[in-house]
């Protein structure tokens, strides 16, 4: 992980450190990547979400492993084993509420992180692969969260699993066979719960692996920054990651944990669905089957398309288009700060995504469906019409010549 443009500043101090450095220079890699790493000095609040996401992932893994020690992945026992955790395991309620709300916090952070990338053009050369690896992490997160939501084996678990796995039945010819294969039977049942548990335990570690690729790629190109300009003078424009950003990110991480704790301790069930406190019952369908809030925009897109197969294609297309984004945006300017038109379209796009999320929670009928269709069309138009066209018609605002110049022109209050 040292292909980046900064030379290693690690000097082993003891004989043992020298001995290790010659054989497995892990301390050097850690020092170069997480301590001395030159980081632009002008990063703002929105750049702290990488650190926040790392914390979220670790919290989910640690609480998840403890939960797995007490949970029983059997359709007869799963629901009551969760109640066993909530009532009889020491601090089981705390561990489970942290884990359940942790997934919401994780998605909140990842959405801010993604929209920060969209605003500041973080996906542009030379960071295309960094962005695409990030999209892969996001997809893995959604798969993991979906399977995790099935494990308590409540009504929403069961019916959410039924709806989502049934999507695959829309594949021509082999759809039904694929769905039976996913279920391990002819309906969502014990085999489904068992494999979802196994995969829900596995995928977070896959995410860790892909996150390492994400960080690796980041450390090759270096951080972007709010000006979108490349670092020209490492000595003048960057600071070492530690202590400057470890402390600054630490502050924002603690602020984020305050929000997290507020949900865990005072509204632990606000982001969940009451129906999931009813044990799964294949004979009773809930009045409204809704996924967790972080999947709602895609649920709205899925239901906006009249044909089932079409809906599935469009929904996966809405995710897939993110992989093409680096080549759909034709502007050479990275940061929306200097792109007056894109800046406005960015906020419209943000509102469209929020609107889709809201529509995803509404019943699929009447005006809601029409609105969802309009917003879905706009969602794709943003990527396939607006972004390519803007690069040609937009007049960028005057930009500072370098990060150094923009740093000098800043007032003292804005520096933090």
């Amino acid at each position: 992980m040292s292909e980046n443009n900064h030379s290693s500043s690690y000097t082993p101090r003891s004989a043992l450190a020298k001995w290790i450095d010659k054989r497995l220079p892990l301390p050097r890699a850690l020092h170069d990547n997480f301590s001395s790493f030159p980081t632009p000095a002008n990063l703002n609040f929105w750049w702290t979400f990488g650190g926040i996401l790392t914390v979220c992932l670790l919290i989910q893994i640690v609480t998840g492993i403890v939960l797995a020690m007490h949970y029983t992945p059997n359709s007869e026992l799963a629901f009551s084993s969760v109640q066993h955790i909530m009532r009889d395991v020491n601090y089981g309620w705390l561990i489970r509420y942290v884990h359940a709300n942790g997934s919401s916090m994780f998605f909140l952070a990842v959405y801010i992180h993604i929209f920060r990338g969209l605003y500041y053009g973080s996906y542009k050369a030379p960071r295309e692969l960094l962005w695409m690896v990030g999209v892969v992490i996001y997809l893995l997160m959604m798969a993991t969260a979906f399977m995790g939501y099935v494990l308590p084996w409540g009504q929403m678990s069961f019916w959410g699993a039924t709806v989502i796995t049934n999507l695959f039945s829309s594949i021509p010819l082999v759809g039904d066979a694929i769905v039976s294969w996913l279920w391990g039977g002819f309906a969502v049942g014990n085999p489904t719960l068992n494999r979802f548990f196994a995969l829900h335990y596995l995928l977070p570690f896959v995410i860790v692996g892909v996150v390492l690729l994400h960080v690796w790629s980041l450390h090759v190109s270096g951080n972007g920054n709010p000006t979108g300009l490349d670092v020209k003078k490492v000595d003048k424009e960057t600071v070492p990651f530690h202590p400057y950003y470890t402390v600054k990110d630490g502050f924002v991480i603690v602020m984020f944990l305050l929000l997290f704790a507020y949900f865990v301790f005072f509204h632990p069930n606000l982001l969940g669905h009451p129906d999931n406190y009813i044990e799964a019952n294949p004979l009773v369908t809930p009045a409204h089957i809704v996924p967790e809030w972080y999947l709602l925009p895609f649920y709205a897109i899925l239901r906006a398309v009249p044909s089932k197969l079409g809906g599935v294609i469009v929904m996966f297309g809405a995710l897939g288009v993110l992989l093409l984004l680096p080549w759909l945006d034709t502007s050479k300017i990275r940061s929306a700060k200097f792109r007056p038109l894109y800046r406005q379209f960015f906020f419209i796009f943000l509102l469209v995504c929020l609107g889709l999320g809201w529509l995803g929670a509404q019943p699929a009928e009447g005006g809601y469906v029409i609105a969802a269709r309009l917003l879905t069309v706009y969602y794709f138009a943003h990527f396939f019409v607006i972004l390519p066209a803007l690069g040609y018609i937009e007049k960028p605002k005057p930009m500072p010549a370098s990060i150094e110049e923009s740093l000098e022109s800043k007032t003292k209050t804005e520096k933090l």
Partner: protein
Amino acid sequence: MRIFAVTFILALAFALPTHANAATGDTPPLPSIDWSFEGPFGSFDRDALRRGFKVYQEVCSACHSLQFLHYRNLSQTGGPEFTEAEVKAIAANYTVQDGPDEFGDMFDRPALPRDRFVSPFPNSQAARAANGGALPPDLSLIVNARPNGANYLYALLTSYEETPPPDLEMSDTQHYNLAMPGALIAMAPPLLEDIVEYSDNTPATVDNMSRDVTTFLAWAANPHMEQRKRIGFQVMIYLVILAGLLYFATKKLWRGRKWQQPE
């Protein structure tokens, strides 16, 4: 940048209460009772919990199980906090099957504090058969399993009406209840004035009994709520202090920085 922050807050406002309006049908709006256990400082009214347990024990438990509770829970901190002797006496009223003994036979014995609450029916088929085909739901989680659960439960217990509108079609086993989605419920009005004899001087009105049993069931669904809120405050105070320290550390660190990579 300010626009970004405003949008972020808007996004939160949008994202959070998505489920709040998902399950409202054509029922009248729920009352908003001032529950003792609401809010960040709320704790369960100990006397209401004990009275509510009595209502459950003498009325509800004829049909409704409380399968996730053990008798020992009745003496734990943050609950009704009966003494251990009282819990032993309560449990001894019930019979559980135990065994096999050394001859391989199952035998009946009085329940002990470590036993689960004894269910009124051996299985859901028996429960349906005894209740005109309707299944009385388990009440362990009922307050969490309904939107705005405590207010809903209170409304359900107090919204029975003697005379349904003449155009409403209903069978003999159904009852008219405005709080129920569809206004028809299989459960007959369970609470009648003075159906329970309270040992304190609280009048056993339908309203009081409904509040008490709702409080009891809110505890049954969230037995660690008081501990959760207490720890929550400690965590929040700790994090606020830590955030303050990190804020000033950040200020100091960045104020003195030079635009150079130190050696």
